């Protein structure tokens, strides 16, 4: 029964709530108990920090061999998003054709179903990303 395991993470998954180190000000997502830079000095000082939900694609893949939870969505796009706050989040890019996704594309977080524990089990919700409209022009190669 994984109900509690998922429930525990509802806040970061629904609202992209990460953590800010009260010692150095660095941001983390998902939230961490210890700042990897400040170590012991950060203990007890890691406060919640909500990301705005906008960012850009820094890399992505179009997934064809899908896990069972994503079977109905394949092929789908999974990406690493550089959030405007500077930290990176892994999530699906939805609501567009895979061919429209580019490195540099601006996206915005939305909430969708992530999966479910069978037809009678609990449903999990969390962030995915959709293109910010109108889509920004693809960034030229570095």
């Amino acid at each position, binding site marked *: 029964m994984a109900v509690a395991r998922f429930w525990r993470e*509802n*806040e970061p998954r*629904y*609202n992209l709530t990460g953590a800010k180190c009260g010692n150095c000000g660095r941001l983390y997502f998902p939230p961490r108990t210890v700042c990897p830079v400040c170590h012991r000095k950060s203990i007890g000082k890691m406060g919640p920090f909500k990301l705005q939900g906008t960012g850009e694609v820094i890399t992505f893949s179009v997934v064809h061999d899908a*896990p*069972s939870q994503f*079977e*109905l*969505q394949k092929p789908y796009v999974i990406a690493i998003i550089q959030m405007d706050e500077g930290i990176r989040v892994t999530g699906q890019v*939805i*609501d567009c*054709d895979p061919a429209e996704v580019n490195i540099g594309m601006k996206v915005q977080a*939305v*909430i*969708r*179903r*992530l999966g479910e524990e*069978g*037809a009678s089990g609990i*449903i999990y*919700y969390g962030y*995915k990303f959709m293109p910010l*409209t109108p889509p920004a022009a693809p960034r030229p190669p570095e």
Partner: protein
Amino acid sequence: MEVGIVSYGAYLPRYRIAPQEIGRVWGTDGDAMSRNLLIFSKSVPSPDEDVITISIEAARNMMRRCDVDPCDIGAIYVGSESHPYAVKPTGTVVAEAIGASPNLTVADYEFACKAGTAGIQTCMGLVGSGMIEYGVAIGADTSQGAPGDALEYSASAGGAAYLIGSKNIVARIDRTCSFTTDTPDFWRREGQCYPSHGGRFTGEPAYFKHIMAASQSLMEKMSSKPADYAHAVFHQPNGKFPVRVAKQLGFSEKQIEAGLLTPFIGNTYSGAVPLGLASVLDIAKPGDRIFAVAYGSGAGSDAFDITVTNEILELRRDAAPTVKDLVEHKKFLDYATYAKFRGKIRMKGGAE
């Protein structure tokens, strides 16, 4: 105390299917179906969308347009006939996802296609009595029509959310009244995937009788006449019924134009009047008077007399997509993909 709409937000899934495509599969004349229902396409949710995600997106769009602290929201009501859970509320997820949890009351409503407007009435009562500062009412559905059934051409998905309060009202709700009877025109039994309906019985004794009665009652109470309203929104199970009921009541086609969405997105059930009203608010000017009447099978009608205030100019309407934006952001599906997305294909459970 004046009570009204403080903000609003809408959400529509991106996918569409055309009646011709449905007709192609079932051997029905899709063009004729389209003409009869006055529906050119209907919205289809992705496999990862449901009433919870649609409600949250609509509520977040609502919050983006105003500066209300979500902690000041005292109640959330989500009206739908397709809540993802039979037991476990939709509203609690919405509350967490807009930051309104935990000091509020939440409940899910069901009254066929008028559960969303029932939520608006509830919030009006709570705000008006001073029990809460703000209430959120959401109407959303991912309604299903049985494969091949006439409903399959119209049953669609979408929703809208309303923030009801007494301060910074962008649209004052002057009055609401309802007309309710036991009329079995449409139903879905517990555990059934698809609803059943009484065919032509859903027309005169159901939709038309209830909307006419609620509308006439409201205009009588307000001493108003159709010409007093800039816009009118009626429940729209297809494109034809609202046009006909408007005509019978004495409203012009021009008055219902802004709020008539079903021809393009199908019947969003609990989302229908909330989305139509949102579409009107997207373009409304201060002083505009709006007549809105929902209908829910079973059966009942909720009628609203609404006046847009100067505050509408302060609302950040462009901070979230307009209904028109959402209607136009679309991608058409073939029937097979639609069937897959809507869970109409029997799948094997679990990974091996």
